[in-house]
């Protein structure tokens, strides 16, 4: 039997759960926890410069590992600063445990200094949340938080711990075992049989992979299913890397900025096999006109996704891995020569266009040059904007968890701290963060953390001195009234990086940008690579707002 404070108990439970790294930023209401954490030899704390940075670092660690990761903040403003990173994790189903300090229980409800109802605030943006009322409750709550975060469809779970609970002494007989994920839902074999029959009978089937395939670790199975059934395969933004982009059956990313041929292939489909995807509006355009001729097989671990946007003819509520394992022996090997020839013909007639891809000073060319200098072991993160879509279109993703992007929330400021999280979790890899000048400024303070941690992270800043995607929309849909989307001053990003202690390379000044880039990417440690790009370049093709996916413009 040991006597512990609530704070020490949390640290012990985190250690038992195998937590190695925590990102956070202290303040009054979380100081007992920090004091206890300082005594841990297992857990390393990374001091972020803004709590949002800490939240995204935890996300980065979780996105590359698939295991719940932890961030910490104090009460009040510390907790509210985490809100965006939590909402982002919720929409992209990222497993995360968030620990916040709270004012002592006796002061809750008195508008005490730095008191904010973070429990109430995070109800709609967490998978679950807790306000802990005694040290004893921690014995259940902490393992429960991890279990919930990793079970079924993953997501963020918040634990709000009042300061008196952190200080409360408790006699602990035995620590609970580390949490494990709940068993997946019971597989409905009759539904699997029916799905297999539909696949075997289909003439023009398409496999549609979403982020759930990555979360479930089912990418190899999905590729196997495609190969066995001769299924052209499209991926959502969240699923890039599930099937290598240059696999003969890949038809690339679907949706708003997908290739024309991809959306045309879907238009022709007579069966859509949707695996771990959720018919998001960016992916499917106008729902009523998406795959108008197709029957739908939908596999998802979250039952509420089935029949939500599109009614499925066969809905399988299951873990994607289990469902695919059951489906594989039932799907007949098929060549589908005619259908694949039709797909190849569409691809040839309406290919993805990459103008100027040979010029490393162009947007596509820069992305290509970076990819050429790296191998598939690299991790690629982005921020949000035109640069994000260009990378999604042009970077050759070949591995699950290689690609980290803010899909559901589309959060500017995501890139740098998330990439840092990836570098913290997988220090042996090179991590690249493609960012835009607008997004970069939203968490630029984390350059200080980056310099301190010396992470192997290269930031590729695609600078158009504009909120490019907004500028593009105003050009296309608001009569070219470009308002509040161009900056009138341009910071010296190279000096800023160097001021924070991060080495920088200005590609604009390089005589041989390709060689300079390759050199910067191959040297260990952090580096900012700055490149000016043309503001008048837009993301094409594009499905205009409210249109069907086949009504694309440009490209």
């Amino acid at each position: 039997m040991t006597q512990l404070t609530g704070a020490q108990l949390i640290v012990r439970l985190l250690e038992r759960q195998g937590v190695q790294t925590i990102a956070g930023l202290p303040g009054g209401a979380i100081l007992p926890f920090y004091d206890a954490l300082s005594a841990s030899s297992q857990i390393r704390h990374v001091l972020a410069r803004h709590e949002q940075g800490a939240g995204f670092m935890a996300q980065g660690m979780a996105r590359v590992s698939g295991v719940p990761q932890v961030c910490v903040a104090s009460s009040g403003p510390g907790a509210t600063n985490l809100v965006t990173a939590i909402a982002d994790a919720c929409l992209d189903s990222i497993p995360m445990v968030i620990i916040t300090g709270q004012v002592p229980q006796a002061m809750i409800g008195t508008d005490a200094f730095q008191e904010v109802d973070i429990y109430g605030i995070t109800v709609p943006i967490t998978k679950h949340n807790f306000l802990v009322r005694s040290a004893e409750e921690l014995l259940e709550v902490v393992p429960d938080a991890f279990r919930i975060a990793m079970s079924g469809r993953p997501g963020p779970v918040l634990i709000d711990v009042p300061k008196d609970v952190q200080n409360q002494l408790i006699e602990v007989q035995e620590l609970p075992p580390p949490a494990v994920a709940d068993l997946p839902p019971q597989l409905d074999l009759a539904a699997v049989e029916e799905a297999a029959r539909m696949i075997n009978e289909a003439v023009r089937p398409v496999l549609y992979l979403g982020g759930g395939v990555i979360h479930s670790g089912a990418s190899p199975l999905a590729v196997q299913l495609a190969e066995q059934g001769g299924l052209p395969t499209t991926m959502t933004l969240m699923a890039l890397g599930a099937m290598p982009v240059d696999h003969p059956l890949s038809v690339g990313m679907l949706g708003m900025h997908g290739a024309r041929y991809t959306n045309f292939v879907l238009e022709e489909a007579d069966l859509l096999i949707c695996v771990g995807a959720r018919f998001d509006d960016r992916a499917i355009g106008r729902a009523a006109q998406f795959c108008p001729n197709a029957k739908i097989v939908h596999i998802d671990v979250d039952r509420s996704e089935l029949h939500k946007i599109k009614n499925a003819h066969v809905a399988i509520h299951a873990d994607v891995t289990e469902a695919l394992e059951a489906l594989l022996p039932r799907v007949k090997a098929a060549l589908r020569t005619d259908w694949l020839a039709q797909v190849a013909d569409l691809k040839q007639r309406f290919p993805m266009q990459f103008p100027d891809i040979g010029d490393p000073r162009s947007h596509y060319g820069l992305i290509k040059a970076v990819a050429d200098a790296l191998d598939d072991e690299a991790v690629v993160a982005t921020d949000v904007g035109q640069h994000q879509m260009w990378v999604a279109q042009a970077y050759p993703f070949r591995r699950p968890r290689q690609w980290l992007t803010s899909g559901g929330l589309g959060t500017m400021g995501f890139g740098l701290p998330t990439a840092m999280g990836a570098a913290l979790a997988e220090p042996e890899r090179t991590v690249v963060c493609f960012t835009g000048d607008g997004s970069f400024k939203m968490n630029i303070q984390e350059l200080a953390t980056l310099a301190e941690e010396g992470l192997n992270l290269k930031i590729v800043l695609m600078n158009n001195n504009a909120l490019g995607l907004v500028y593009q929309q105003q050009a296309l849909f608001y009569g070219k009234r470009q308002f509040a989307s161009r900056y009138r001053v341009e910071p010296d990003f190279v000096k800023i990086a160097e001021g924070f202690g991060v080495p920088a390379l200005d590609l604009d000044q390089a005589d041989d940008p390709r060689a300079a880039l390759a050199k910067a990417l191959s040297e260990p440690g952090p580096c900012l690579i700055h490149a000016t790009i043309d503001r008048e370049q837009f993301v094409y093709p594009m499905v205009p707002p409210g249109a069907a996916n086949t009504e694309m413009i440009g490209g």
Partner: protein
Amino acid sequence: MIEQVADPLPQATAVAKVVLELDVNNHPGVMSHICNLFARRAFNVEGILCMPVSDGKRSRIWLLVFDDHRLEQMVRQVEKLEDVLNVRRHGAEHEVFERLEGFFH
């Protein structure tokens, strides 16, 4: 990214009501999880009633809602809540709210 352009919300024409009976864990916050879920999905709750049951570890919640086309999805979302143990559906003829009428008139 880009603003959403969606069809206008179909007007709720359904007048039929449904009574939902939920078994939930009884601790502070459960009500806020449930009410928040309905509110953020713009789903109106016409009536709500909650009392602890048996040893006080559980509560039962009765909800009176309109039977519109989103109800199925709504129920699935409710079932996902960690503290909701199960959801049962009754027709409007269920008497739980009727018997309370006396307190409202």
